[in-house]
C-alpha cells in the first residue's frame, strides 16, 4: 500500500513537466530543490533533534567548490558536485566533532552552527580569489556537461532526483537501527548513553550524511541560478529557509519536509510576487514568521503528523 502510493506519487512527479507552463515549472523546481534541502536537514535536525541553523554553510561550500573547479580547472560540475559535497561533509564533521565532543546541546549547538556559518561567510567575502563580497558568476553555455541546460525541464528532473535521493536515504535510515538510535538520542540522550549507545558516533554520522547531501544541493544552486554571493549562500536567511520547511511540515518524519516545501515554497513565491510588486518586500517572511509561531503553538509536531491523524480518524 505504502509502496504503491509512493510509486504513484513518483509517477505523477515524473509526468508533471509535460503539463506545466514555464512559470509553474520554475515553482516546482524550487519546491523540489527546497524539499531536498529540507530532507537533508531533517536527517540531522529532525530525526536526531540536533537543531542546526548553519546549514547554509554546506550549500555555500558545495556551490563554491564546484563553481571554482569548473571555472579554473575545467572539472565538470558533475564531478565537482561530489567534491563539493565531500568538503561540506568535512566541514560538517568538524562542526559536529567540536559540538558533540564538547557536549553542546540545544541553544549552544544552535549558536555554534550559526557561528561557523558566519565565519565561512566572512572568510569567503574577504577572499578575492573566490570573488570576494561580489561572489562568483557562472557564464551560461547551455552545455549539459557543464551542468547547464537549455531546457528547464532537465533542472526539474535533476531536482527531483536529488529529492528522491535524500528521501530514499532518510527512509533507509528510518528503517535501520541507525534511525532508531537517532530518534532515541533526540528523545532522551542521557538514557541512550546509559543503554550503551555510542551517541557521539551516531550524531556524527547523521551530521556527515546531512552535510554531504546539503553540499550536493550547493552545486545545483550555483548552476541553476548562475551566481553565488557569500551573503546569500552562507547567510542566516538561507539557513532559515532550510529549517522552516521541515519544522512546518513535520520534523523527524519522512514526508514532513516534502509537505512543508509544497506548502511554503508556492506561498513564498506567490506572496513575493504579489506583494513585491506593490513595494512590500519581505512579505513572504512575515508569512513564514506567522506560520512558524502558529505551528509552534498549535502543531508542535508539524503539519504531516496532524494530517495523518486526521485521515486515520476519518
Amino acid at each position: 500500500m505504502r509502496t504503491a502510493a509512493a510509486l504513484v506519487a513518483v509517477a505523477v512527479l515524473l509526468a508533471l513537466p509535460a503539463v506545466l507552463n514555464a512559470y509553474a515549472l520554475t515553482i516546482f523546481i524550487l519546491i523540489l530543490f527546497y524539499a531536498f534541502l529540507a530532507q537533508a536537514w531533517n536527517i540531522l535536525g529532525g530525526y536526531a533533534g540536533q537543531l542546526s541553523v548553519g546549514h547554509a554553510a554546506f550549500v555555500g561550500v558545495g556551490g563554491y567548490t564546484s563553481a571554482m573547479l569548473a571555472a579554473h580547472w575545467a572539472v565538470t560540475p558533475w564531478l565537482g558536485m561530489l567534491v563539493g559535497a565531500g568538503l561540506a561533509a568535512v566541514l560538517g564533521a568538524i562542526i559536529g566533532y567540536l559540538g558533540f565532543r564538547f557536549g553542546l546541546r540545544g541553544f549552544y549547538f544552535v549558536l555554534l552552527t550559526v557561528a561557523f556559518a558566519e565565519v565561512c561567510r566572512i572568510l569567503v567575502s574577504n577572499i578575492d580569489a573566490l570573488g570576494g563580497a561580489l561572489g562568483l558568476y557562472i557564464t551560461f553555455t547551455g552545455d549539459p556537461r557543464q551542468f547547464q541546460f537549455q531546457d528547464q525541464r532537465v533542472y526539474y528532473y535533476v531536482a527531483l532526483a536529488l529529492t528522491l535521493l535524500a528521501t530514499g536515504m532518510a527512509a533507509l535510515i528510518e528503517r535501520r537501527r541507525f534511525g532508531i538510535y537517532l530518534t532515541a538520542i533526540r528523545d532522551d540522550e542521557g538514557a541512550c548513553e546509559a543503554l550503551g549507545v555510542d551517541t557521539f558516533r551516531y550524531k556524527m554520522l547523521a551530521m556527515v550524511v546531512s552535510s554531504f547531501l546539503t553540499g550536493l544541493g550547493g552545486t545545483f544552486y550555483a548552476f541553476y541560478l548562475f551566481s553565488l554571493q557569500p551573503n546569500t549562500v552562507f547567510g542566516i536567511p538561507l539557513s532559515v529557509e532550510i529549517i522552516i520547511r521541515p519544522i512546518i511540515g513535520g520534523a523527524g518524519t519522512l514526508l514532513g519536509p516534502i509537505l512543508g516545501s509544497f506548502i511554503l515554497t508556492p506561498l513564498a513565491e506567490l506572496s513575493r510576487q504579489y506583494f513585491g510588486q506593490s513595494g512590500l518586500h519581505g512579505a513572504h517572511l512575515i508569512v513564514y514568521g506567522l506560520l512558524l509561531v502558529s505551528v509552534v503553538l498549535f502543531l508542535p509536531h508539524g503539519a504531516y503528523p496532524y494530517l495523518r491523524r486526521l485521515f486515520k480518524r476519518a
Partner: protein
Amino acid sequence: MAVGLTLIFGVMRVVNFAHGDMMVWGMYLAFVLATRAGIDPYLSFAFCAAALFVLGVAVQRGLVDRIVDAPHEMQILLMLGVALVLENLALAVFGPEPARIRSALARLTWEVGPLYVDVARLVTFVVAIVLTLALWLFLFRTELGRLIRASADNPYGARVIGADVRRIYAAAFGIGAACVGAAGALVAPILPFQPTTGLSLSVTSFNIVIIGGMGSLVGAFVGGLLVSVAESLGAVFLRPSLKELFSFGLLILILLLRPAGLFGRRAA
C-alpha cells in the same frame, strides 16, 4: 542591550531571537518621534523603553507563556518566528533604506587635551552605564528584583513561597525588552540602521551574552566591551570587513572551552 537579553535568558531560559529586531523597532520609534514630533532621541529613549516594555509583556503573555515548559528548541523556533515578523513588518512600514537620526548632540565634539570626544557617544556610554547600574540595583535591592532572581534560580521554589511566577516572567521579559528599546533609541543617532540590521544585532548580542556569561549582568557588560574591542582591533590590524571574524572566533572558543561564559555559573 545585551543586558536586556541576559535578563530574559537568565531568568526565563528563553532564547530571544527577536532581540535585535526589538531593538530596531526601538530605533524606528525614536526615528519617528524625532522626525515627526521633533523629540531628541536622548529624551525619547524613555518613551521607547516604555513602548518596548509593553511589546515584551505582550509577546511573553501571548506567546512564550504557552510553551514555557516545552523543549528549548520550540522556544528558539517561536522567537525566530517572532523575529521574522518584526523584522519584515519594519521593512514593510519603513522601507529598506538606511535611516539615521540627526540629534543636536551628535554634531558636538569636546576637545579634551589631545583627544576629541564625540559627545553623542559619550552620552550613550554614560546612559548605558547608568541603566546597567539601575538594573543591578533593581535586581538586587528591590522585592520584585529578588523575586525575579528567585524565579530564575528555582521556579518551583519561587512558587512555593507564593510568588506569581508567570507575572514575574512577564515583568522580566518586559524589562528586558525595555532595555533594548532604550538602547535602540540611544544608539540610533550614532549608527545608521535599516530593518535588516536586526538580525546582525541579535547575533552580536548573543555573542556578547555567551562570551560574558548567561544571566550575569557584569558578564554582559564586560562581554560587550570585549567584543567591541576585539572587533575594533581586528578592523585596525586587518581589514575592516574581517572584524566580525574575531567576535565569532571568540564565540566559538568560549562555547567550546567555557560554555557558561566568562562570568556565568554553569547552567544545570
